[in-house]
């Protein structure tokens, strides 16, 4: 589904922060991306999400060579990838419901078409009573769940989550993890970037470990 071959990344004229990354995200796979803070996890997530271009190497996304993909096609490919950012990136002027419906509005769906789906998903992530709340009044955990719901609403092929449990207490972290696993069981490939050892110990899953810009894969 996504394959990296000898990928390297540097910002500007700085040192190479990711070196010779070679790995594959298989369909319906589940993996953790881990490593110490500053190891480049977020940069790798951004490469996976096509918001950064590698300085060298080959990236194939959905069987397409990234270097050959036309700029206009990138949004269409991004729709197959859900992303949950550490800082949630919810829009403060939209309600929780509107934030979660955003990816559907972007693809041109009418509200009547998606209303039931959004309400159902909101209930499923436990935000059924917070549909009309604005993000500034949501707790950290609620924001996190809203961000996850927004990433899931289009049923993406791949879900990338950057420190999804970084702002929540351990019980909620476990609940969110179960949520990701359920999603994976339904066919979505999941990549969770985290340096939370406790979270890693809860699931036996493939681990991609970043250290000093290099990646080690533990199946």
């Amino acid at each position: 589904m996504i394959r990296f071959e000898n990928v390297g990344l540097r910002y500007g004229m700085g040192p190479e922060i990711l070196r010779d990354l070679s790995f594959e995200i298989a369909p319906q796979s589940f993996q953790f991306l881990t490593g110490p803070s500053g190891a480049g996890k977020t940069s790798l997530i951004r490469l996976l999400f096509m918001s950064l271009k590698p300085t060298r190497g080959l990236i194939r996304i959905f069987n397409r060579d990234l270097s050959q993909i036309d700029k206009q096609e990138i949004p269409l490919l991004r729709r197959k990838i859900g992303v949950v950012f550490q800082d949630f990136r919810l829009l403060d002027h939209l309600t929780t419901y509107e934030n979660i419906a955003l990816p559907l509005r972007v693809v041109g769906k009418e509200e009547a078409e998606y209303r039931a789906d959004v309400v159902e998903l909101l209930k499923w992530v436990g935000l059924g009573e917070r549909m009309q709340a604005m993000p500034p009044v949501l707790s950290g955990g609620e924001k996190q769940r809203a961000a996850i719901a927004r990433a899931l609403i289009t049923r993406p092929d791949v879900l990338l989550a950057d420190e999804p449990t970084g702002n929540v207490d351990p019980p909620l972290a476990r609940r969110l993890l179960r949520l990701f696993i359920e999603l994976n069981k339904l066919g979505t490939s999941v990549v969770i970037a985290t340096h939370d050892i406790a979270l890693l110990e809860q699931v036996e899953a493939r681990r991609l470990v970043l250290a000093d810009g290099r990646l080690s894969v533990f199946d």
Partner: protein
Amino acid sequence: MAKISKPRANASRQAPGKSAPNRPPAPARAKPARRRRLAREGNALRPTAPIVPPQSVAGRALTLVVAIMSFLACLTVGAVSVVWDAADAWQNDLVREVTIQIRPVDGIDMAREIDRAVALAQEFPGIGVVRALSDAETRQLLEPWLGGGLDLDALPVPRLIQITLADPGSVDLDQLRTAITGSISGASLDDHSVWTSRLSAMAGTVVLAGFAILALVMASMVLSVVFATQAAMAGNKDVISVLHFVGAEDSFIAREFQRHFLVLGLIGGIAGGACAVVCFVVLDVFSREAEGLASSDQLSALFGSVSVSLPGYLGVLAVVFLVAVLTALTSGLAVKAHLAKGD
């Protein structure tokens, strides 16, 4: 700590384990009745808010700038309309009128020559009324320069014959000129072609100047909108970033901004156009009330009635439409250019 069961590939149809939460909802998976109930629950929601917050798009200041620019553009259109109408009226009058001038020649009876010229002119096809100016009319014509009580016989004053053309297209003026100058002593024919060509040139210049002013005003407005769009985009960097990662195309983002600027352009354009229309109406009322005053008469002599005609008002409508479209288009292009630069 109890471990959660390892996720397995190709397990999409597995029932959830005891510890797992309910399965995530899938779009269109719920039964129709349940979907209807869920949709009803969503009925209490507020109307969907715009993705780009309206208050983040330069509001009142830009609306005011657009309104002022529209007002100036509409005034220009109104002024051009007044001058164009006046030039058109002058031109029509002049084209429909030809003058024969008979200069006094020694030994020739002026009155007889005038009668002959009148008779000759009346024979030509397309000629309407041929009328020699009476002594009283000639005196009145010369009064501003030579004073009252003028004795026409004491001075070698040329006499005028006014010809009104019934059908300007069918009159052969060259033939008329040849006939008049050949058979009437001291006669010449003035078809006012010098005046009409000057008038055309003057009206054309005024219209060109009007369009130039209009173009400058619109260019200033476009630049203001470009700056405002850039400011709006800088203020909505987070919104644009979120839209990008949920898969929005540049054209979608541009449309979201464009929508706000179209509304802003419409409000500004209508406000400016309405102010201009009020000015036109006030000018019309004043010019009617001032009829008979010396200054008003001079203006009337130049421009006829100083009022904006229907094409002028239609021009105002066109300016309002143009302002709204231009504002929206400019903002859309500015957003696309900004996004392209960002990539």
